[in-house]
């Protein structure tokens, strides 16, 4: 018995020690020759390797694939510029995209990159990708060495945003193990991958664009607390961190904040509840548009950002704040009195305990958050506190992702979204095939659907931004405060990093959802002073 106790004590110590352990000692950065060591969350390690067909770059979290090059890339203001492509056009009906590519690009094994490789890559993604949507693509065809045609199943005006994240793979060197030993034509070559620990990249000496300034990039995968420990020990140059650690003072490091569209918000099911195939869809309380509007008005976002994020965040009014397709009609000011009036009008009157009631039913709902995510939990708790002032009883509950999607059909869930494509609006608000309701939370509005369909059919990408804006609010209907407001958006979470003094991190684009690879999108432009 005693032995057992001692053993378990030892185990506890070992566990505690491993928390502070930093993998791969001896990766001390050498500032002189352009080497950089960056930490990322363990979830950023691509489980299926560095293959665009399995989510590298074009996955749940979008970013530039580094090892491979893409046809186009997004600029700082999230418009599109050419990379491999020299020009691209879409046919009038939007069903054919023709892209001309450079003829001077070589893979790192010396073979030239041709239109055939591009076609192969996209057809491969269409067939294999489960993490990004390629259903709109019928077929990619190489017309000649430098021209590729994309034949679409349906018009898809925002195709360039897909072209910006799909890394082109070499057809001649592609097999099922490609993701483990990727060959590309991008700025960096993957030299070494110690699974569960680190990936080492070296600059591609034959890169067709401007030569990278940073010669060697080491990415370490670890949790935030270990990253902080690593920075304290001076072992890394850039350590990702969270708002709760932001008040730590580290010698030789300063805190860098990057603005994001990594938003958090919760859904309010907009239909009355109904059971189908064992899943409940809709929620009787939030089905009333006045209730949803009142909730939106009763949220003091500024206070929430100060409370939960120590101020390291920006207010979110939509899923796409700061994007070119964002409609600023979504802005709504905190107004508790107006919110109370709306609740009164909806027939919910305050009871003795301060909680509103109607026909003996108490006003309120359960707000779910994903287990273990302390920021979402804090946002859920603060939302509950703020809505209490409106007379709503909001319970919070931690759930796992295995059940969260189904339960979110009838109960609000704290989500995180944000991507460099207007498709995000479509995924959240557009109704889907059979059910006629949006995918993640029951909602449907024909006018909103039509604007988005029209936007996808448009033959001019920049002109289509207007239609995306109208889908949000066209003056009479939409998804904003004055419209149906089926989702409440709270904040965009700043991505925070401890950066070693002397390292100049190049200006960042607004980061999308995911605190991982986006930071090294432009690693080639970083500099040591």
């Amino acid at each position: 018995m005693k032995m057992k106790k001692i053993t378990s004590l030892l185990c506890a110590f070992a566990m505690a020690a491993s928390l502070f352990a930093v993998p791969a000692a001896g990766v001390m950065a050498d500032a002189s020759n352009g080497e950089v060591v960056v930490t990322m969350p363990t979830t950023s390690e691509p489980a299926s390797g560095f293959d665009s067909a399995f989510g590298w770059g074009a996955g749940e979290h979008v970013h530039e694939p580094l090892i491979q090059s893409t046809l186009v890339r997004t600029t700082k203001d999230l418009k599109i510029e050419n990379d491999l492509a020299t020009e691209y056009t879409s046919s009038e009906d939007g069903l054919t995209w023709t892209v001309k590519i450079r003829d001077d690009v070589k893979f790192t094994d010396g073979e030239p990159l041709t239109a055939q490789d591009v076609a192969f890559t996209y057809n491969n993604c269409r067939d294999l990708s489960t993490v990004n949507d390629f259903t709109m693509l019928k077929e990619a065809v190489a017309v000649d060495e430098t021209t590729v045609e994309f034949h679409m199943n349906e018009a898809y005006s925002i195709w360039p945003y897909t072209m910006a994240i799909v890394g082109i793979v070499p057809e001649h060197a592609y097999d099922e193990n490609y993701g483990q030993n990727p060959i590309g034509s991008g700025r960096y070559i993957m030299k070494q991958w110690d699974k569960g620990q680190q990936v080492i990249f070296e600059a591609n000496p034959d890169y067709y664009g401007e030569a990278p300034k940073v010669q060697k990039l080491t990415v370490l995968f670890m949790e935030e607390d270990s990253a902080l420990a690593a920075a304290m020990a001076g072992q890394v140059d850039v350590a990702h961190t969270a708002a709760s650690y932001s008040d730590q003072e580290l010698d030789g490091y300063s805190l860098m904040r990057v603005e994001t569209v990594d938003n958090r918000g919760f859904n309010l099911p907009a239909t009355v509840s109904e059971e189908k195939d064992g899943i409940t869809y809709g929620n009787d309380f939030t089905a009333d548009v006045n209730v949803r509007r009142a909730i939106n008005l009763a949220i003091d976002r500024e206070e929430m950002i100060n409370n939960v994020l120590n101020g390291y965040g920006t207010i979110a009014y939509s899923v796409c704040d700061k994007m070119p397709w964002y409609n600023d009609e979504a802005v709504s000011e905190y107004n508790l009195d107006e919110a109370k009036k709306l609740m009164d009008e909806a027939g919910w009157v305050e009871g003795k305990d301060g909680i509103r009631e109607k026909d003996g039913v108490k006003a309120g709902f359960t707000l779910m958050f994903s287990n273990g995510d302390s920021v979402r939990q804090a946002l859920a708790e603060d939302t509950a506190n703020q809505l209490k002032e409106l007379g709503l009883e909001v319970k919070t509950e931690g759930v796992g992702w295995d059940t969260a999607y189904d339960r979110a059909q009838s109960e609000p869930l704290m989500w995180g979204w944000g991507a460099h494509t207007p498709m995000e609006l479509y995924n959240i608000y557009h109704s889907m095939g059979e059910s006629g309701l949006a995918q993640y939370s029951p909602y449907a509005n024909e006018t909103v659907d039509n604007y988005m369909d029209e936007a996808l059919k448009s033959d001019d990408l920049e002109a289509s931004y207007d239609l995306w804006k109208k889908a949000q609010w066209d003056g009479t209907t939409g998804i904003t405060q004055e419209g149906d407001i089926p989702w409440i958006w709270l904040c965009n979470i700043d991505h925070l990093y401890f950066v070693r003094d002397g390292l100049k991190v190049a200006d960042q684009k607004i980061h999308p959802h995911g605190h991982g690879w986006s930071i090294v999108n432009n690693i080639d432009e970083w500099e040591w002073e």
Partner: protein
Amino acid sequence: MKTKMNQRKKAKILLAVAVFFLAAVAVAGIICHDAAMVTDFSRKNLPPSLAYPFGTDWLGRNMFYRTLTGLSMSILIGVCAAGVSVVMALILGLAAATLGKKADSVITFLIDLVMGIPHILLLLLISFALGKGLRGVIVGVALTHWTSLARLIRGEVLQLKQSEYIQIARKLGHSNLEIARKHMLVHLLPQFLVGLVLMFPHAILHESSITFLGFGLSTEQPAIGVILSESMKYLIMGKWWLALFPGIMLVLTVVLFDLGGTSLRKILDPNSVHK
């Protein structure tokens, strides 16, 4: 003249202290439940003070209330799960010893089967299969902890069967069931009670460990496992109070249960009762 306290008295006092403390924690926890859930961002990350003896966490929750509630939940889950477990052990142990050879080999096989799999692993499996949460934990703990006690009871009953008074009862024509109820159960009661009490600390520790690992109660609950696993993230920032006090309280609870159980055994066991 000062009399030296004998062991019996000491044991009684220890038992009383343990029972009182545990009952107080259990009750206090239930009373504080609502207060433990309150979040207030104006008082987050406060070190221990008079107003907040155990400090507050990153949501501004009062860790003192949270710890009490967590312990009380652990105690209640522990009592509940251990209770179910002990009843299972008693029934199966009795059945094995009295219902003949076949039943005996089936039950012995079951015991070996459950004992063969590491506790924590089986617990995780059962809890996960039942969708985690309160039900998963209770069923998980109950289904994994009955084995050793069942084996003990079976052995005891087998021995009892050979004793003279049972033999005589059988000769007098009493049925198996009646013998089991009238003669054996009474004899087994002390061991049963002690087994029950000594199972509590196990049950509590296992409840908190699977919750700590994320397979038990969900994270908005003020469970001791949740508190401890959350505190790990903030240790590096020097927020020692988040782990220290709840940890000490958990150890204290377990130790008190252990002491209480041992004292109870001393009082009930004819060998030691008069020392």
